[in-house]
């Protein structure tokens, strides 16, 4: 992300304020990649539908990874799909965030033992920011996950980490 890649050596007021503004912008417009995998995708759809309404938090699904900021890995990641997920992740421009939704994406879930074709946790191929437990997680849980992600973005800094 160009200029912002270079971390500022020490924080000052200007940097701190700009930083807050930029963080605020990023956290209040996390556009997710409209992409569902399995059962959790239905809950994800329910979350963006009328009753729970993702749009309140500024989330709208974009269908192309180029215009998205976050992927919600909503469901079981199979080996065949893992390669594609990795590619999708690489296609998203920085800064990008991953929410791993549901037990399957977290750790393989119920398929951990005999799932010869299931990747046991999406974090084996891409870095994950927030894990949302549940099988499937309720929409409220996903919203909580989103709030956690926003918290994480809020605390991001351009300054060098000490």
């Amino acid at each position, binding site marked *: *992300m*160009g200029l*912002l890649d270079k971390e500022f050596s020490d924080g000052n007021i200007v940097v701190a304020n700009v930083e807050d*503004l*930029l963080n*605020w*912008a*990023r956290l*209040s*417009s996390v556009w997710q990649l409209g992409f569902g995998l399995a059962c959790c995708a239905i809950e994800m759809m329910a979350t963006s*539908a*009328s009753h729970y*309404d993702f*749009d*309140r*938090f*500024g989330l*709208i699904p*974009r*269908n*192309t990874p*180029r*215009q998205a*900021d976050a992927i919600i890995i909503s469901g079981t990641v199979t080996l065949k799909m893992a390669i594609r997920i990795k590619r999708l992740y690489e*296609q*998203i*421009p*920085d*800064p990008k965030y991953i929410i791993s939704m549901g037990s399957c994406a977290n750790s393989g879930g119920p398929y951990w033992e005999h799932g010869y074709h299931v990747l046991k946790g999406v974090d084996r191929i891409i870095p994950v920011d927030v894990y949302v437990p549940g099988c499937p997680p309720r929409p409220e849980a996903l919203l909580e996950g989103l709030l956690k992600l926003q918290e994480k973005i809020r605390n991001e800094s351009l300054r060098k980490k000490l």
Partner: protein
Amino acid sequence: MYQYFYDLTGSVIISTLITAVFPLVNVLLVALIGVYLERKVSAWMQDRVGPNRTGPFGLFQTIADFLKMLQKEDATATDIDKKLYNIAPVLVFAGSFAVYAVIPFSSKLIGSEIEVGLFYALAVSSFVVAGILMAGWSSNNKYSLLGAMRSAAQIVSYEIPTALVVLAMVMFLGTLSLSKISEMQTAYFWNWNILGGAEFGLSKFLLIPFMLVGFIIIFISTLAEVNRTPFDIPEAESELVAGYFTEYCGMKWAMFMLSEYGNMFAVSAIVSILFFGGYQSPFGYLGNTLGINWLIPYEQAFWFILKGWFFIFVQMWLRWTLPRLRVDQLMTVCWKYLIPYAFVNLIIIGIITLL
């Protein structure tokens, strides 16, 4: 406008600057409010709330989106045609932005008061096609290509009914200047062109049904020209992922977005100028009644913006109600229905005008 600000400030530099910046500010504002409104309107129609976490009623949502897009990495694939890829969004944006130069927001607020305003607006907005084709081709993505092809076919086809209706109106009015057209429909709403124009007589009542047809045709075809549902097939989300801008990200994509919303307002403005009195108030002016002359341009701007946004609202309303057509059906609508009707309309309006 230059003259207005020159009279107001007395400075050449300031008035030039304001005149030059005015269209840009306008198009940005339209996009900012447009995106926000689109999300809110869709939310209300769908039993949702819409953005409400950023500022009061989520008013700053688009600003946040914009700031975020500024921060995004400018990711480009390796196999794209770099030059065209970079020019395309600029061209598309220029096409929609240039129209704003001639849109009369009020009798004083016109970027450039040229005699052939209507012609210029139609011509300049065709830039968009070239930009879209470039974007589709250079992205080296099959979805983009398909979207661009669809879009080019669609926009080029739908210019014909638009032009035909515009032609009819020009015949009727005898001028191409947008501000003159607005001036002609002065004072009250029964002088609007949709109600047969300012001249009172038999021809006024004869014209009303044909004006209505003309309005419907031009509204439908402008809807198609700006790629809105039910004619949003070039970017048909569920078919072509994101159409011609599939590969674009960050600010370059934001420019496409800006131009889309800019276009929406531009065509609404032109429709309202042609048929709904442009910046004229439907009920006379408060400034006239109170005898405060300087108030009138502001009142006019208010009415103009209100009319423009009303048509944008109708566009959104349609978008969130209707499914989209298919490519061939879209072409059928244009070539088999709109164009013949527009021709007949043209002839009849011509005859009535001659009477």
